């Protein structure tokens, strides 16, 4: 069963068209990965899926519901969550506040306590640094926090853009291991990766995006 269906999506920035009809389906409870060269539009596809940019054409269905025109915060309420490229943490806020903000959507609020325990178990490093400003943490720690914040959103579908970027291989392996655990908890995952071999190793399905179509 597909939990997310992206069909013939066309979009871009201003006048510039980037996606020329992209289609991608996510099987519920599986890890899917999306690879493709630099600048082909992977991030653009994720941003369009979340509603940060409007699709020009095509449709996006989440759990059978047409969500093509919904704003990002409503999609987060439904359980569609993106860990964006470049982390986009709340750099002026503390680690624990970032985690709290992750649990802003209506589904996640009541489960905050439980999810924070889960996240600290996965990333003990964060537990040691709850009071530190997110912007002052190391790159790897920030990446952990970005993923942790996504998990705090209690996602049904978790999309992660460039998880491994700038991280030591050991850490990447550990993060992939955590993702596998998440999948076993029933969370559907979409990985966008440059690190093709590692990504394919943990994925159940793979897509290649080339020249904006696939």
């Amino acid at each position, binding site marked *: 069963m597909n939990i997310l269906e992206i069909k013939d999506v066309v979009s871009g920035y201003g006048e510039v068209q980037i996606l020329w009809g992209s289609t991608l389906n996510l099987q519920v409870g599986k890890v899917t990965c999306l690879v493709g060269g630099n600048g082909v539009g992977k991030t653009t596809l994720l941003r369009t899926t979340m509603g940060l940019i409007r699709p020009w054409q095509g449709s996006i269905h989440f759990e059978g519901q047409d969500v093509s025109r919904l704003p990002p915060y409503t999609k987060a309420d439904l359980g569609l969550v993106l860990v964006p490229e470049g982390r*986009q943490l709340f750099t002026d806020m503390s680690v624990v506040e970032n985690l709290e903000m992750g649990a*802003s959507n209506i589904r996640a609020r009541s489960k905050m306590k439980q999810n924070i325990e889960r996240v600290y178990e996965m990333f003990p490093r964060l537990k040691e640094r709850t009071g530190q400003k997110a912007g002052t943490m190391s790159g790897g720690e920030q990446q952990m926090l970005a993923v942790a914040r996504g998990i705090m959103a209690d996602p049904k579908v978790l999309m992660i853009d460039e998880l491994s970027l700038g991280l030591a291989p050991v850490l990447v392996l550990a993060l992939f291991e955590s993702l596998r655990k998440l999948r076993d908890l029933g969370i559907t995952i979409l990985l966008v990766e440059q690190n093709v071999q590692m990504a394919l190793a943990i994925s159940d399905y793979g897509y290649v995006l080339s020249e904006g179509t696939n």
Partner: protein
Amino acid sequence: MGLTLIWGVMNVINLSHGPIIALGMFGSYLAFIKLGINPYLALFLIAAAGLLLGIVIYMVAVHRVINAPHLSSLLATFSVNMIIIGLGTAAFTTSPYNVDFSMGQIQIGSTSLLGTRLIAALVAMLVTGSLYIFLYRTRPGKYIRAVANNRAAAELMGIPSTQILALSFGLGTMLAAIAGGLIATFFPFSILSGGGYELKSFVIGVLGGLGNPVGALAGGLLLGVLESIIPAFMEASWVPVIEFGLFIVILLVKPSGLFGAKK
């Protein structure tokens, strides 16, 4: 403080700040003279009206230009400024009013302190304290900080950023209205007198670091101290010259403000 909140959250310089201070003053006047409400109780009404007015101004005038270059938002808030002054002039003319209300005075050595001023200072501190607690301890307050810090990320996490921005603008306006309601208890005022206070707010905001509410209070205290000390050494008319001189020096030397705002 309201000015600095709005700047901090949405990078909009709110030029309608002054007339809203003036509206706060008239709010206090109307409540006291026409309805016989104690000016301090009236602050609650003024605060609520300020919050609503701010949200309306945001939705009507500011929302559309929030991502536009600064000039657009300056013009938009300046238009709101002109509209309020125009309507206010029609309703109250530009002649001075005052709220004839006294809380006695306290004698400290050779200087005497008006009770109304003392209470105003206390209320200002109370409001700053509450604002701080609101921003750092409550969920909506943290949403405001999150949106200020990274609007797109806030949206991705499920925070409806437009509502949060409207709330922030409403709070900023509320603070200006409260300031007006307080000032009205000890100074005469007209619909135009907000302008002078708006300029002072800029100086204070820059002193304390725009976007930093506690810095704004500290900046305000500093300015207050300066204003009372300068006349001891020179003509009182030099006060604004010194203030704005200081303003420019700080902008040049430490643009993030004495108490270092973010960015």
